[in-house]
């Protein structure tokens, strides 16, 4: 029997529950909740550029963590701290030079009992950790909210939650950057974000969208070669997942990539002086793809395949990535006029 009194009580319960659920952190709570249990803090070797601490993202329920390549991983005693403040050791499974990503597997730390004897900690069980399933970074549009989680300046101590910052997704762009005086090896597309993640400790953290879906991994601290400013970016989750899968399931990954053959265009560039050499055409080989496309001596090449090339080095960099058979759009300035032509690369003889 439900009396009127009961009924009122039930309604009140419903209202209280509804009120409790709308006491949210401004709407960002799904994202922040998703981040705080899946981003871990790393502590390792401190030397030179390396701050000795960083962040990582759990990608399996049995404690596989993806992070960025860093000097801290070279530590003899690498420590990983999860949300509840539990400290784990970790083995580095792989550090990839091309993508500058690294994969770790957590392991229990040995503990000491009352008599000072070393005891193996509890083994890690499958299903012990919450982890991120990859989202889809291609759905991001400029202006979308993004939330970054990491441990900048190792502010979070013990079982304190990680630091999160809110910003918007700026754009997708190719990473063209350097660390100190050396070019950064990863040149793929990254997610440029409008929140400061170029701080020590943030790299390796996660970037999620408003729904809390994992879209990127905060990249290493670099300086953009285009703007010469510190670069706030995340490696798209697709690139991260490809890397994780290639380490965890090497048999599923495609075997050796076929050896690439250098592409041939037939343009000899005018080289004189140093630094910032403009991409002027010195000569074009006879019966070459460039000759067929209509490239002439003294043309100034300004863009190749949609990418602007401001110096010979950047032109060669674009060309190095192209394969024979690729067709490229070439934009040149000739007699103060813009000319666009299409060139089909051939195989180098």
């Amino acid at each position, binding site marked *: *029997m*439900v009396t009127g009194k*009961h*009924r009122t009580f*039930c*309604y009140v*319960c*419903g209202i209280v*529950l*509804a009120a409790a*659920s*709308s006491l*949210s*952190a*401004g*709407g*960002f*709570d*799904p994202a922040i*909740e998703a981040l705080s249990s899946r981003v871990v803090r790393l502590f390792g070797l401190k030397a030179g550029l390396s701050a000795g601490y960083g962040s990582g993202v759990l990608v399996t329920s049995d404690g596989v963590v993806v992070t960025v390549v860093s000097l801290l991983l070279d530590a003899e005693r690498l420590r990983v701290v999860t949300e509840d403040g539990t400290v784990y050791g970790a083995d580095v499974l792989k550090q990839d030079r091309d993508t500058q990503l690294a994969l770790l597997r957590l392991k229990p730390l040995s503990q000491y009992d009352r008599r000072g004897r070393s005891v193996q900690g509890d083994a890690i069980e499958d299903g012990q950790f919450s982890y991120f399933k990859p989202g889809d970074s291609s759905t991001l549009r*400029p*202006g*979308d*909210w993004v939330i970054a989680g990491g441990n900048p300046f190792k502010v979070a101590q013990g079982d304190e939650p990680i630091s999160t910052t809110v*910003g*918007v*997704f*700026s*754009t*997708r*762009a190719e990473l*063209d950057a350097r660390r100190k*005086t050396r070019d950064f090896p990863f040149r793929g597309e990254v997610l*440029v974000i*409008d929140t*400061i993640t170029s701080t020590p400790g943030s790299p390796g953290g996660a970037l999620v969208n*408003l729904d809390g879906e994992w879209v990127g991994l905060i990249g290493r601290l670099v300086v*953009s*070669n*285009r*703007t*010469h*400013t510190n670069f*706030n970016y995340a490696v798209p989750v697709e690139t991260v997942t490809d890397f994780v899968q290639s380490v965890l399931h090497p048999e599923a990954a495609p075997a050796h990539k076929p050896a690439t053959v250098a592409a041939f265009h037939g343009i000899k560039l005018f080289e004189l002086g*140093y*630094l*910032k050499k*403009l991409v002027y055409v010195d000569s074009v080989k006879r019966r070459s793809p460039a000759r067929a496309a209509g490239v002439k001596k003294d043309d*100034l090449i*300004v*863009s190749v395949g949609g*990418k*602007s090339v*401001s110096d010979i080095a950047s032109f060669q960099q674009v060309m190095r990535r192209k394969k024979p058979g690729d067709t490229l759009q070439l*934009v040149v*300035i000739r007699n*103060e*006029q*813009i000319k*666009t032509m299409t060139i089909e690369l051939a195989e180098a003889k």
Partner: protein
Amino acid sequence: MRWFPIVASCMALVTTAAQPARAGEDFDILKTRQSLFHDAIDSVVPYIVRIETIGGAQPRVVGETAPPEEEEDDGSPPPQPMPFQDNLGSQFMVADGPTAGIIFDADGWILTSSFNFVREPAHITIHLTDGRDYVAELVARDRVRKLALLKIDATGLQTPEWVPVSEIRVGMRTIALGRGFGGESPSATVGIVSALNRMDGNAVQTDAKLSPANYGGPLIDLRGRVLGICVPMAQRPGELAGVEFYDAGIGFAVTKDRVEEIVAELKEGVSFYRGWLGVSINTRAQNNCMIRAVADPSPVRELGIRPGDIIATANGHELRSIKNLRQAIYMVPAGEVVQLVIRHGDLESCYEVVLARNTELGALVQNEPPPIDPANPFIKPKKLPWKR
């Protein structure tokens, strides 16, 4: 029927447990705001152009100073790009990537920031959103407000809507757009209008992150209207002043009223330069702005102002130090008038001084200027009220 309330509240319990925060209306507000961002960006993208610069100066001391006395020339190329340095010693890397500008009027006038041309590039190309490419001519620069006007050979271009300056309020949402990182779409950073009438009334301040990635691009509101052109600025002169604020939440955008004041002259190829009085101030003087030396020739020397005189006010601002003087005139370009009150002993005189470019100034001298013609109508002696 009687069981319905219990069932309903149980269901409420189940759904809240499964999706603890989705129910929050804050979340919906955020989603709505996100789509507002999209709409605003989409509506202004057609008016943003991508500017590519090719060639130009190597990093060296630039600006309006003389070249350094000794150019290092050991033949070996420096391993890394060197920072540019302006005449006040601030150093910064000038962007190498593409930059942004906006279509200012239908006949092919493109407005952007002069920051993008510090290198003095040999070629400038412009890529419109509709896919057309043009070679652009750099018509004129305003080095004080950090603007530049380019011309391309196009007509019938669509122009964006601007926010009337009187409608701009502190707290309005802003989105800064740029092309500095390359990529297919412009990059966006968001913030609010932090202050109005900054930089002597030339700019609005925003906390959207401005950097070499978006100098020259537009700052827009949530309705996709242009608030101003993003430029580096600081309360001190110099071509690179303000760049050090990048991504710090301190950014400036020049508003339309100021652009309209100068755009006719810019179109005629008239560039604006920093204005100089041609005086050196005694920094040891207490609580006043005493002239230590005067450039010969210079606008002030022609008026008979001499070392030892005290600049009491400039454009109505009372001066207590060289900092006050800089602040009073740093946004006044050469060729414009500054009103000075000069104290010479007991005499206080008003002058209207036309500022000069630093290339027009001579060396600093400390000797007396030629005697002043007492019939000079500009000099209006008057007794100091507080003089015993």
